[in-house]
Protein backbone atom coordinates (compact mmCIF):
# COMPACT_ATOMS: atom_id res chain seq x y z
CA UNK A 1 0.00 0.00 0.00
CA UNK A 2 1.55 3.28 -1.02
CA UNK A 3 -1.25 5.44 0.39
CA UNK A 4 -3.76 4.70 3.11
CA UNK A 5 -6.47 7.01 4.36
CA UNK A 6 -8.24 6.14 7.59
CA UNK A 7 -11.40 7.93 8.64
CA UNK A 8 -10.46 11.30 7.15
CA UNK A 9 -12.78 14.16 8.05
CA UNK A 10 -12.29 17.83 7.35
CA UNK A 11 -14.47 20.57 8.69
CA UNK A 12 -14.39 24.26 7.84
CA UNK A 13 -16.25 25.91 10.68
CA UNK A 14 -19.65 24.21 10.65
CA UNK A 15 -19.24 22.83 7.14
CA UNK A 16 -18.17 19.23 6.73
CA UNK A 17 -16.17 19.01 3.53
CA UNK A 18 -15.14 15.41 4.14
CA UNK A 19 -16.63 12.76 6.42
CA UNK A 20 -15.04 9.45 7.26
CA UNK A 21 -13.16 8.84 4.04
CA UNK A 22 -11.05 5.67 4.09
CA UNK A 23 -9.36 3.90 1.22
CA UNK A 24 -6.05 2.39 0.15
CA UNK A 25 -4.10 2.84 -3.02
CA UNK A 26 -1.68 0.12 -4.01
CA UNK A 27 1.60 0.63 -5.80
CA UNK A 28 1.32 1.21 -9.56
CA UNK A 29 -2.43 1.74 -9.62
CA UNK A 30 -4.39 4.49 -11.27
CA UNK A 31 -7.22 5.48 -8.95
CA UNK A 32 -9.96 7.68 -10.34
CA UNK A 33 -11.67 10.05 -7.95
CA UNK A 34 -15.02 11.29 -9.21
CA UNK A 35 -18.06 13.04 -7.84
CA UNK A 36 -20.29 16.05 -8.44
CA UNK A 37 -18.97 19.58 -7.97
CA UNK A 38 -18.37 20.41 -4.34
CA UNK A 39 -18.09 16.75 -3.33
CA UNK A 40 -14.76 17.38 -1.58
CA UNK A 41 -12.39 15.90 -4.14
CA UNK A 42 -9.92 18.78 -4.16
CA UNK A 43 -10.19 19.09 -0.38
CA UNK A 44 -9.16 15.45 -0.17
CA UNK A 45 -6.13 16.22 -2.36
CA UNK A 46 -5.27 19.12 -0.10
CA UNK A 47 -5.36 16.76 2.87
CA UNK A 48 -3.18 14.16 1.16
CA UNK A 49 -0.64 16.73 -0.04
CA UNK A 50 -0.47 18.43 3.37
CA UNK A 51 -2.08 21.75 2.45
CA UNK A 52 -4.86 21.05 4.97
CA UNK A 53 -4.57 19.11 8.17
CA UNK A 54 -7.53 16.72 8.51
CA UNK A 55 -9.85 17.40 11.44
CA UNK A 56 -9.79 13.70 12.28
CA UNK A 57 -8.30 10.61 10.69
CA UNK A 58 -4.82 9.58 9.62
CA UNK A 59 -2.90 9.55 6.37
CA UNK A 60 -0.24 6.90 5.81
CA UNK A 61 2.28 7.15 2.99
CA UNK A 62 4.40 4.05 2.36
CA UNK A 63 3.46 2.85 5.81
CA UNK A 64 4.49 6.02 7.67
CA UNK A 65 1.97 8.24 9.42
CA UNK A 66 2.27 11.56 7.60
CA UNK A 67 -0.86 13.24 8.95
CA UNK A 68 -0.36 16.98 9.33
CA UNK A 69 3.10 17.15 7.80
CA UNK A 70 3.63 20.36 5.78
CA UNK A 71 3.42 20.10 1.97
CA UNK A 72 7.16 20.57 1.42
CA UNK A 73 8.01 17.58 3.60
CA UNK A 74 5.52 15.40 1.74
CA UNK A 75 6.92 16.63 -1.57
CA UNK A 76 10.38 15.59 -0.42
CA UNK A 77 9.00 12.16 0.52
CA UNK A 78 7.63 11.65 -2.97
CA UNK A 79 4.11 13.07 -3.24
CA UNK A 80 3.59 15.46 -6.15
CA UNK A 81 0.42 17.11 -7.36
CA UNK A 82 -1.02 19.32 -10.04
CA UNK A 83 -3.58 22.04 -9.40
CA UNK A 84 -7.05 22.29 -10.81
CA UNK A 85 -6.50 26.02 -11.20
CA UNK A 86 -3.04 26.14 -12.74
CA UNK A 87 -0.38 27.75 -10.56
CA UNK A 88 2.54 28.59 -12.85
CA UNK A 89 5.46 30.67 -11.58
CA UNK A 90 4.60 33.36 -14.11
CA UNK A 91 7.76 35.39 -14.33
CA UNK A 92 10.03 32.36 -14.59
CA UNK A 93 10.72 30.48 -17.80
CA UNK A 94 9.04 27.14 -18.43
CA UNK A 95 12.40 25.47 -17.87
CA UNK A 96 12.92 27.16 -14.49
CA UNK A 97 9.40 26.19 -13.43
CA UNK A 98 10.18 22.55 -14.04
CA UNK A 99 13.60 22.92 -12.41
CA UNK A 100 11.88 24.01 -9.19
CA UNK A 101 10.10 20.67 -9.17
CA UNK A 102 13.32 18.77 -9.79
CA UNK A 103 15.37 20.80 -7.31
CA UNK A 104 13.04 20.60 -4.36
CA UNK A 105 11.22 17.35 -5.00
CA UNK A 106 12.05 13.85 -3.88
CA UNK A 107 15.50 13.72 -5.44
CA UNK A 108 16.50 17.13 -4.10
CA UNK A 109 18.83 17.73 -7.05
CA UNK A 110 21.37 20.47 -7.61
CA UNK A 111 20.77 23.08 -10.31
CA UNK A 112 22.81 21.41 -13.07
CA UNK A 113 21.25 17.98 -12.55
CA UNK A 114 17.81 19.56 -12.25
CA UNK A 115 18.25 21.28 -15.60
CA UNK A 116 19.00 17.95 -17.23
CA UNK A 117 15.93 16.32 -15.67
CA UNK A 118 13.80 19.32 -16.65
CA UNK A 119 14.96 19.06 -20.27
CA UNK A 120 13.98 15.39 -20.36
CA UNK A 121 10.59 16.00 -18.79
CA UNK A 122 9.81 18.92 -21.09
CA UNK A 123 10.60 16.66 -24.02
CA UNK A 124 8.25 14.03 -22.57
CA UNK A 125 5.30 16.41 -22.10
CA UNK A 126 5.97 18.15 -25.40
CA UNK A 127 6.90 21.56 -24.05
CA UNK A 128 10.57 21.44 -25.07
CA UNK A 129 10.17 24.10 -27.80
CA UNK A 130 8.77 26.49 -25.18
CA UNK A 131 11.46 25.92 -22.55
CA UNK A 132 12.85 29.48 -22.73
CA UNK A 133 9.46 31.20 -22.77
CA UNK A 134 7.97 32.76 -19.66
CA UNK A 135 5.34 30.54 -18.07
CA UNK A 136 2.64 33.21 -18.33
CA UNK A 137 2.92 33.19 -22.12
CA UNK A 138 1.55 29.63 -22.33
CA UNK A 139 -2.06 28.81 -23.16
CA UNK A 140 -4.25 26.76 -20.83
CA UNK A 141 -3.45 23.36 -22.35
CA UNK A 142 0.26 24.14 -22.17
CA UNK A 143 -0.05 25.35 -18.60
CA UNK A 144 -1.68 22.04 -17.68
CA UNK A 145 1.25 20.25 -19.25
CA UNK A 146 3.57 22.50 -17.28
CA UNK A 147 1.80 21.53 -14.05
CA UNK A 148 2.29 17.91 -15.05
CA UNK A 149 5.94 18.48 -15.94
CA UNK A 150 6.70 20.17 -12.63
CA UNK A 151 5.10 17.34 -10.72
CA UNK A 152 6.94 14.69 -12.73
CA UNK A 153 10.28 16.47 -12.40
CA UNK A 154 10.24 15.73 -8.69
CA UNK A 155 10.28 12.02 -9.59
CA UNK A 156 7.36 11.25 -7.26
CA UNK A 157 6.17 7.88 -6.01
CA UNK A 158 2.62 9.18 -5.87
CA UNK A 159 1.16 11.65 -8.33
CA UNK A 160 -2.08 13.50 -7.60
CA UNK A 161 -3.69 14.88 -10.76
CA UNK A 162 -6.44 17.44 -10.20
CA UNK A 163 -8.56 17.76 -13.35
CA UNK A 164 -5.74 17.76 -15.83
CA UNK A 165 -8.23 17.16 -18.63
CA UNK A 166 -10.64 20.00 -17.88
CA UNK A 167 -10.71 22.66 -20.55
CA UNK A 168 -8.82 20.58 -23.09
CA UNK A 169 -10.17 19.73 -26.54
CA UNK A 170 -10.68 16.06 -27.54
CA UNK A 171 -7.29 15.66 -29.22
CA UNK A 172 -5.51 17.26 -26.27
CA UNK A 173 -7.45 14.93 -23.97
CA UNK A 174 -6.24 11.95 -25.97
CA UNK A 175 -2.62 13.13 -25.65
CA UNK A 176 -2.96 13.72 -21.93
CA UNK A 177 -4.57 10.31 -21.32
CA UNK A 178 -1.79 8.49 -23.09
CA UNK A 179 0.69 10.53 -21.11
CA UNK A 180 -0.98 9.47 -17.86
CA UNK A 181 -0.79 5.82 -18.90
CA UNK A 182 2.84 6.19 -19.85
CA UNK A 183 3.62 7.71 -16.44
CA UNK A 184 1.94 4.77 -14.72
CA UNK A 185 3.94 2.36 -16.86
CA UNK A 186 7.06 3.99 -15.47
CA UNK A 187 5.96 2.87 -12.01
CA UNK A 188 4.32 6.00 -10.60
CA UNK A 189 1.11 5.52 -8.64
CA UNK A 190 -1.58 7.96 -9.71
CA UNK A 191 -4.71 9.34 -8.10
CA UNK A 192 -6.70 11.48 -10.50
CA UNK A 193 -9.71 13.71 -10.02
CA UNK A 194 -11.60 13.94 -13.25
CA UNK A 195 -14.89 15.11 -14.70
CA UNK A 196 -14.33 13.80 -18.19
CA UNK A 197 -16.09 10.54 -17.49
CA UNK A 198 -15.12 8.50 -20.49
CA UNK A 199 -11.45 9.23 -19.98
CA UNK A 200 -11.40 8.46 -16.28
CA UNK A 201 -13.35 5.23 -16.74
CA UNK A 202 -10.99 4.19 -19.50
CA UNK A 203 -7.76 4.90 -17.69
CA UNK A 204 -8.51 3.96 -14.05
CA UNK A 205 -7.93 0.58 -12.44
CA UNK A 206 -10.29 1.53 -9.66
CA UNK A 207 -12.72 4.37 -9.09
CA UNK A 208 -13.90 6.06 -5.91
CA UNK A 209 -16.98 8.24 -5.86
CA UNK A 210 -17.41 11.11 -3.41
CA UNK A 211 -20.66 12.93 -2.79
CA UNK A 212 -21.16 15.61 -0.14
CA UNK A 213 -17.82 14.66 1.37
CA UNK A 214 -18.67 11.00 1.76
CA UNK A 215 -17.49 7.97 -0.16
CA UNK A 216 -20.58 6.51 -1.76
CA UNK A 217 -18.97 3.88 -3.95
CA UNK A 218 -15.72 2.18 -4.70
CA UNK A 219 -14.87 -0.41 -7.35
CA UNK A 220 -13.81 -1.12 -10.88
CA UNK A 221 -14.97 1.35 -13.55
CA UNK A 222 -17.49 -1.23 -14.76
CA UNK A 223 -19.05 -1.76 -11.35
CA UNK A 224 -19.14 1.98 -10.67
CA UNK A 225 -21.00 2.78 -13.85
CA UNK A 226 -23.74 0.33 -12.84
CA UNK A 227 -23.91 1.44 -9.21
CA UNK A 228 -27.33 2.83 -8.27
CA UNK A 229 -26.02 5.28 -5.67
CA UNK A 230 -23.62 6.76 -8.16
CA UNK A 231 -26.28 7.20 -10.79
CA UNK A 232 -28.48 8.86 -8.20
CA UNK A 233 -25.71 11.24 -7.17
CA UNK A 234 -25.32 12.28 -10.77
CA UNK A 235 -29.07 12.51 -11.45
CA UNK A 236 -28.92 16.26 -11.02
CA UNK A 237 -26.84 16.12 -14.15
CA UNK A 238 -28.61 13.81 -16.63
CA UNK A 239 -25.93 14.22 -19.27
CA UNK A 240 -23.29 12.87 -16.92
CA UNK A 241 -25.55 10.03 -15.82
CA UNK A 242 -26.02 9.13 -19.46
CA UNK A 243 -22.29 9.16 -20.02
CA UNK A 244 -21.83 6.88 -17.04
CA UNK A 245 -24.33 4.42 -18.46
CA UNK A 246 -22.48 4.29 -21.77
Amino acid sequence: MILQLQGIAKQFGGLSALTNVSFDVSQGQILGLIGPNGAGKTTLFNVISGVFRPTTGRVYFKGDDVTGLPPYRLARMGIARTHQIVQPLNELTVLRNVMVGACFGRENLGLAAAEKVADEILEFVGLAPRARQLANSLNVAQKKRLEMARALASRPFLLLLDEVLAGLNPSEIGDMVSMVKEIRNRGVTIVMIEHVMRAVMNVSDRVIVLDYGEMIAEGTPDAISKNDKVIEAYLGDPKLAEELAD
Partner: protein
Amino acid sequence: MNRVKNRGLWLTVGLTLAVGLWPPLTGDANNREIVVTILMYAALASSLNLMLGYTGYVNFGHIVFWGLGAYVGFYLMSALNMPLVVAVLGGGAASGLIAMLLGQAILRLRGAYFALATIGINEAARAFVSNFEPFGGPTGMSLNFKVYNAYGGAMQSLWIVYWAMLLLAIAAIVLSYAIKSSKFGLGLTAIRENEDAAEVMGVFTPTTKAWAYVLSAIIPGMAGVLFFFKNGNIEPVDAFRLHTSIEIIVMVMLGGQGTLLGPILGAGIYERLRGLLLVSPLFKNIQLVVAGIILLLIVLFIPAGVVGWLRRRILPLREWVE
Protein backbone atom coordinates in the same frame (compact mmCIF):
# COMPACT_ATOMS: atom_id res chain seq x y z
CA MET B 1 25.05 30.28 -20.26
CA ASN B 2 27.33 30.62 -17.26
CA ARG B 3 29.76 32.86 -19.10
CA VAL B 4 26.87 35.07 -20.13
CA LYS B 5 25.61 35.27 -16.57
CA ASN B 6 29.05 36.21 -15.34
CA ARG B 7 29.05 39.23 -17.60
CA GLY B 8 26.19 40.64 -15.55
CA LEU B 9 28.27 40.28 -12.38
CA TRP B 10 31.41 41.82 -13.89
CA LEU B 11 29.51 44.73 -15.34
CA THR B 12 27.91 45.55 -11.99
CA VAL B 13 31.12 45.13 -9.99
CA GLY B 14 33.06 47.05 -12.66
CA LEU B 15 30.63 49.94 -12.57
CA THR B 16 30.75 50.08 -8.77
CA LEU B 17 34.54 49.99 -8.80
CA ALA B 18 34.71 52.70 -11.47
CA VAL B 19 32.61 55.01 -9.35
CA GLY B 20 34.27 53.84 -6.15
CA LEU B 21 37.85 54.38 -7.29
CA TRP B 22 37.22 57.85 -8.59
CA PRO B 23 37.51 59.76 -5.25
CA PRO B 24 40.73 57.99 -4.14
CA LEU B 25 42.28 58.75 -7.54
CA THR B 26 41.33 62.41 -7.42
CA GLY B 27 41.88 62.58 -3.66
CA ASP B 28 38.95 64.97 -3.44
CA ALA B 29 37.19 65.01 -0.04
CA ASN B 30 33.95 66.36 -1.46
CA ASN B 31 33.69 63.58 -4.01
CA ARG B 32 34.50 61.07 -1.32
CA GLU B 33 31.54 62.17 0.78
CA ILE B 34 29.19 62.01 -2.20
CA VAL B 35 30.38 58.58 -3.28
CA VAL B 36 30.52 57.06 0.20
CA THR B 37 26.81 57.82 0.60
CA ILE B 38 26.03 56.30 -2.80
CA LEU B 39 28.03 53.20 -1.88
CA MET B 40 26.20 52.84 1.41
CA TYR B 41 22.82 53.09 -0.26
CA ALA B 42 23.99 50.70 -2.97
CA ALA B 43 24.80 48.16 -0.24
CA LEU B 44 21.47 48.81 1.51
CA ALA B 45 19.42 48.62 -1.69
CA SER B 46 21.22 45.53 -2.91
CA SER B 47 20.63 43.74 0.38
CA LEU B 48 16.99 44.84 0.52
CA ASN B 49 16.63 43.40 -2.97
CA LEU B 50 17.10 39.92 -1.51
CA MET B 51 13.75 40.31 0.24
CA LEU B 52 11.91 42.74 -2.02
CA GLY B 53 13.14 41.58 -5.40
CA TYR B 54 14.04 37.93 -4.97
CA THR B 55 11.51 36.77 -2.37
CA GLY B 56 8.74 39.27 -3.07
CA TYR B 57 8.38 40.45 0.52
CA VAL B 58 8.04 44.22 0.92
CA ASN B 59 10.12 45.22 3.91
CA PHE B 60 9.59 48.71 5.30
CA GLY B 61 11.91 47.94 8.19
CA HIS B 62 15.19 47.49 6.36
CA ILE B 63 16.66 50.51 8.13
CA VAL B 64 16.08 48.80 11.48
CA PHE B 65 18.96 46.44 10.71
CA TRP B 66 21.14 49.41 9.83
CA GLY B 67 20.18 51.20 13.04
CA LEU B 68 20.34 48.28 15.46
CA GLY B 69 23.58 46.96 13.98
CA ALA B 70 25.01 50.46 14.28
CA TYR B 71 23.94 50.69 17.91
CA VAL B 72 25.53 47.37 18.80
CA GLY B 73 28.75 48.25 16.97
CA PHE B 74 28.80 51.72 18.48
CA TYR B 75 28.34 50.24 21.94
CA LEU B 76 31.25 47.85 21.33
CA MET B 77 33.46 50.78 20.38
CA SER B 78 32.40 53.41 22.90
CA ALA B 79 31.72 51.31 26.00
CA LEU B 80 34.00 48.33 25.47
CA ASN B 81 36.78 50.02 23.43
CA MET B 82 36.68 47.38 20.75
CA PRO B 83 38.40 48.07 17.43
CA LEU B 84 36.33 49.09 14.40
CA VAL B 85 36.69 45.70 12.67
CA VAL B 86 35.17 43.91 15.65
CA ALA B 87 32.42 46.51 15.89
CA VAL B 88 31.53 46.13 12.20
CA LEU B 89 31.45 42.35 12.40
CA GLY B 90 29.54 42.51 15.69
CA GLY B 91 27.00 44.93 14.22
CA GLY B 92 26.46 42.65 11.22
CA ALA B 93 26.11 39.57 13.41
CA ALA B 94 23.69 41.36 15.75
CA SER B 95 21.49 42.41 12.83
CA GLY B 96 21.51 38.89 11.44
CA LEU B 97 20.53 37.48 14.80
CA ILE B 98 17.74 40.00 15.24
CA ALA B 99 16.44 39.18 11.78
CA MET B 100 16.40 35.50 12.66
CA LEU B 101 14.33 36.15 15.79
CA LEU B 102 12.00 38.66 14.14
CA GLY B 103 11.60 36.38 11.15
CA GLN B 104 10.20 33.60 13.30
CA ALA B 105 7.36 35.92 14.21
CA ILE B 106 6.61 37.99 11.13
CA LEU B 107 7.57 35.77 8.20
CA ARG B 108 4.36 33.84 8.80
CA LEU B 109 2.59 36.90 7.42
CA ARG B 110 2.27 37.55 3.74
CA GLY B 111 1.74 40.48 1.44
CA ALA B 112 0.39 43.66 2.97
CA TYR B 113 0.32 42.13 6.45
CA PHE B 114 4.05 41.48 6.37
CA ALA B 115 4.68 45.01 5.11
CA LEU B 116 2.58 46.48 7.93
CA ALA B 117 4.40 44.39 10.52
CA THR B 118 7.75 45.73 9.30
CA ILE B 119 6.54 49.30 9.79
CA GLY B 120 5.60 48.34 13.33
CA ILE B 121 9.06 46.92 13.89
CA ASN B 122 10.64 50.18 12.80
CA GLU B 123 8.63 52.12 15.36
CA ALA B 124 9.12 49.49 18.06
CA ALA B 125 12.90 49.48 17.55
CA ARG B 126 13.09 53.25 17.92
CA ALA B 127 10.92 53.21 21.04
CA PHE B 128 12.99 50.41 22.54
CA VAL B 129 16.36 52.07 21.92
CA SER B 130 15.05 55.45 23.13
CA ASN B 131 14.34 53.81 26.49
CA PHE B 132 17.33 51.51 26.69
CA GLU B 133 19.83 53.11 29.07
CA PRO B 134 22.98 51.14 28.07
CA PHE B 135 22.51 52.62 24.58
CA GLY B 136 22.14 56.11 26.00
CA GLY B 137 18.36 56.30 25.84
CA PRO B 138 16.91 59.23 23.87
CA THR B 139 20.22 61.14 23.69
CA GLY B 140 22.19 58.22 22.25
CA MET B 141 25.95 57.75 22.44
CA SER B 142 29.05 59.62 21.31
CA LEU B 143 32.54 58.49 20.45
CA ASN B 144 35.46 60.05 22.24
CA PHE B 145 37.50 61.92 19.64
CA LYS B 146 40.60 60.00 20.78
CA VAL B 147 39.13 56.83 19.29
CA TYR B 148 40.02 58.09 15.84
CA ASN B 149 43.69 58.37 16.79
CA ALA B 150 43.95 54.59 16.72
CA TYR B 151 43.17 54.79 12.99
CA GLY B 152 45.66 57.56 12.17
CA GLY B 153 43.40 60.50 12.99
CA ALA B 154 39.99 61.69 11.86
CA MET B 155 41.04 62.26 8.25
CA GLN B 156 42.48 58.79 7.88
CA SER B 157 39.37 57.32 9.52
CA LEU B 158 37.18 58.83 6.85
CA TRP B 159 39.22 57.03 4.20
CA ILE B 160 39.06 53.78 6.14
CA VAL B 161 35.28 54.08 6.26
CA TYR B 162 35.31 54.85 2.56
CA TRP B 163 37.25 51.73 1.58
CA ALA B 164 35.19 49.57 3.92
CA MET B 165 31.97 50.91 2.41
CA LEU B 166 33.24 50.14 -1.10
CA LEU B 167 34.03 46.62 0.07
CA LEU B 168 30.55 46.26 1.56
CA ALA B 169 28.85 47.42 -1.63
CA ILE B 170 30.82 44.88 -3.63
CA ALA B 171 30.13 42.19 -1.03
CA ALA B 172 26.41 42.93 -1.38
CA ILE B 173 26.63 42.55 -5.16
CA VAL B 174 28.60 39.31 -4.98
CA LEU B 175 26.20 37.93 -2.36
CA SER B 176 23.21 38.86 -4.54
CA TYR B 177 24.82 37.21 -7.52
CA ALA B 178 25.73 34.07 -5.60
CA ILE B 179 22.17 33.74 -4.30
CA LYS B 180 20.64 34.47 -7.69
CA SER B 181 22.62 31.73 -9.37
CA SER B 182 22.00 29.16 -6.64
CA LYS B 183 19.32 26.62 -5.85
CA PHE B 184 18.47 28.70 -2.78
CA GLY B 185 17.81 31.64 -5.11
CA LEU B 186 15.53 29.52 -7.29
CA GLY B 187 13.57 28.64 -4.15
CA LEU B 188 13.25 32.34 -3.32
CA THR B 189 11.92 33.24 -6.76
CA ALA B 190 9.48 30.35 -6.55
CA ILE B 191 8.20 31.82 -3.27
CA ARG B 192 7.93 35.25 -4.89
CA GLU B 193 5.91 33.94 -7.81
CA ASN B 194 3.57 31.68 -5.84
CA GLU B 195 4.29 30.71 -2.28
CA ASP B 196 1.61 28.01 -2.06
CA ALA B 197 2.77 26.35 -5.25
CA ALA B 198 6.39 26.56 -4.07
CA GLU B 199 5.43 24.76 -0.87
CA VAL B 200 3.67 21.99 -2.73
CA MET B 201 6.72 21.60 -4.96
CA GLY B 202 8.89 21.02 -1.92
CA VAL B 203 10.46 24.40 -1.15
CA PHE B 204 10.97 24.54 2.63
CA THR B 205 9.38 27.96 2.73
CA PRO B 206 9.82 28.90 6.42
CA THR B 207 13.56 28.21 6.52
CA THR B 208 14.15 29.59 3.03
CA LYS B 209 12.44 32.88 3.86
CA ALA B 210 14.21 33.09 7.22
CA TRP B 211 17.62 32.78 5.55
CA ALA B 212 16.76 35.42 2.98
CA TYR B 213 15.75 37.75 5.81
CA VAL B 214 18.91 37.05 7.81
CA LEU B 215 21.21 37.45 4.81
CA SER B 216 19.53 40.71 3.86
CA ALA B 217 20.07 42.05 7.41
CA ILE B 218 23.80 41.48 7.87
CA ILE B 219 25.21 44.00 5.39
CA PRO B 220 22.99 46.87 6.60
CA GLY B 221 24.15 46.18 10.16
CA MET B 222 27.77 46.50 9.07
CA ALA B 223 27.08 49.61 6.99
CA GLY B 224 25.34 51.22 9.96
CA VAL B 225 28.39 50.78 12.18
CA LEU B 226 30.61 52.41 9.54
CA PHE B 227 28.20 55.29 9.01
CA PHE B 228 27.89 56.16 12.69
CA PHE B 229 31.58 55.62 13.34
CA LYS B 230 32.16 58.33 10.76
CA ASN B 231 29.40 60.41 12.30
CA GLY B 232 30.84 60.23 15.83
CA ASN B 233 27.49 60.00 17.58
CA ILE B 234 24.29 58.04 17.28
CA GLU B 235 20.72 58.90 18.28
CA PRO B 236 17.43 57.01 17.94
CA VAL B 237 15.94 59.57 15.54
CA ASP B 238 18.90 59.19 13.17
CA ALA B 239 19.13 55.43 13.39
CA PHE B 240 15.48 54.50 12.71
CA ARG B 241 14.07 56.75 10.02
CA LEU B 242 11.07 55.13 8.38
CA HIS B 243 11.42 57.40 5.36
CA THR B 244 14.95 56.16 4.74
CA SER B 245 13.52 52.64 4.53
CA ILE B 246 11.05 53.93 1.97
CA GLU B 247 13.80 55.67 0.04
CA ILE B 248 15.72 52.39 -0.18
CA ILE B 249 12.58 50.73 -1.55
CA VAL B 250 12.37 53.55 -4.14
CA MET B 251 15.99 52.88 -5.15
CA VAL B 252 15.36 49.17 -5.65
CA MET B 253 12.14 49.77 -7.59
CA LEU B 254 13.73 52.54 -9.67
CA GLY B 255 16.71 50.44 -10.70
CA GLY B 256 14.81 47.21 -11.11
CA GLN B 257 13.76 44.79 -8.39
CA GLY B 258 15.11 41.29 -8.63
CA THR B 259 18.03 42.33 -10.85
CA LEU B 260 21.68 42.54 -9.89
CA LEU B 261 22.52 45.92 -11.38
CA GLY B 262 19.16 47.53 -10.63
CA PRO B 263 19.52 48.37 -6.92
CA ILE B 264 23.05 49.72 -7.51
CA LEU B 265 21.91 51.86 -10.41
CA GLY B 266 18.83 52.95 -8.47
CA ALA B 267 20.93 53.98 -5.48
CA GLY B 268 23.27 55.99 -7.72
CA ILE B 269 20.51 57.75 -9.63
CA TYR B 270 18.41 58.48 -6.55
CA GLU B 271 21.32 59.75 -4.48
CA ARG B 272 22.55 62.05 -7.27
CA LEU B 273 19.04 63.31 -7.77
CA ARG B 274 18.66 63.99 -4.08
CA GLY B 275 22.02 65.77 -4.07
CA LEU B 276 20.81 68.09 -6.81
CA LEU B 277 17.42 68.66 -5.17
CA LEU B 278 18.93 69.48 -1.81
CA VAL B 279 20.95 72.36 -3.22
CA SER B 280 18.08 73.69 -5.31
CA PRO B 281 16.19 76.47 -3.49
CA LEU B 282 12.90 75.26 -4.93
CA PHE B 283 13.14 71.59 -3.98
CA LYS B 284 15.33 71.50 -0.90
CA ASN B 285 12.41 71.22 1.51
CA ILE B 286 10.31 68.90 -0.56
CA GLN B 287 12.83 66.37 -1.83
CA LEU B 288 10.81 63.54 -0.29
CA VAL B 289 7.85 64.59 -2.40
CA VAL B 290 10.00 63.89 -5.43
CA ALA B 291 10.83 60.44 -4.04
CA GLY B 292 7.12 59.79 -3.61
CA ILE B 293 6.34 60.88 -7.15
CA ILE B 294 9.15 58.72 -8.55
CA LEU B 295 7.79 55.70 -6.68
CA LEU B 296 4.28 56.37 -7.96
CA LEU B 297 5.46 56.70 -11.56
CA ILE B 298 7.55 53.53 -11.37
CA VAL B 299 4.77 51.44 -9.87
CA LEU B 300 2.30 52.74 -12.44
CA PHE B 301 4.40 52.68 -15.59
CA ILE B 302 7.61 50.70 -15.25
CA PRO B 303 7.17 48.24 -12.38
CA ALA B 304 10.22 46.33 -13.63
CA GLY B 305 12.43 49.39 -13.05
CA VAL B 306 15.09 50.80 -15.36
CA VAL B 307 17.05 47.57 -15.73
CA GLY B 308 13.96 45.41 -16.15
CA TRP B 309 12.59 47.81 -18.74
CA LEU B 310 15.85 47.89 -20.70
CA ARG B 311 16.16 44.11 -20.63
CA ARG B 312 12.69 43.79 -22.06
CA ARG B 313 13.15 46.38 -24.79
CA ILE B 314 16.71 45.82 -25.93
CA LEU B 315 17.30 42.10 -26.20
CA PRO B 316 21.09 42.14 -26.78
CA LEU B 317 21.43 43.89 -23.41
CA ARG B 318 20.27 40.71 -21.68
CA GLU B 319 23.67 39.17 -22.09
CA TRP B 320 25.30 42.07 -20.30
CA VAL B 321 22.81 43.36 -17.80
CA GLU B 322 21.64 41.05 -15.08
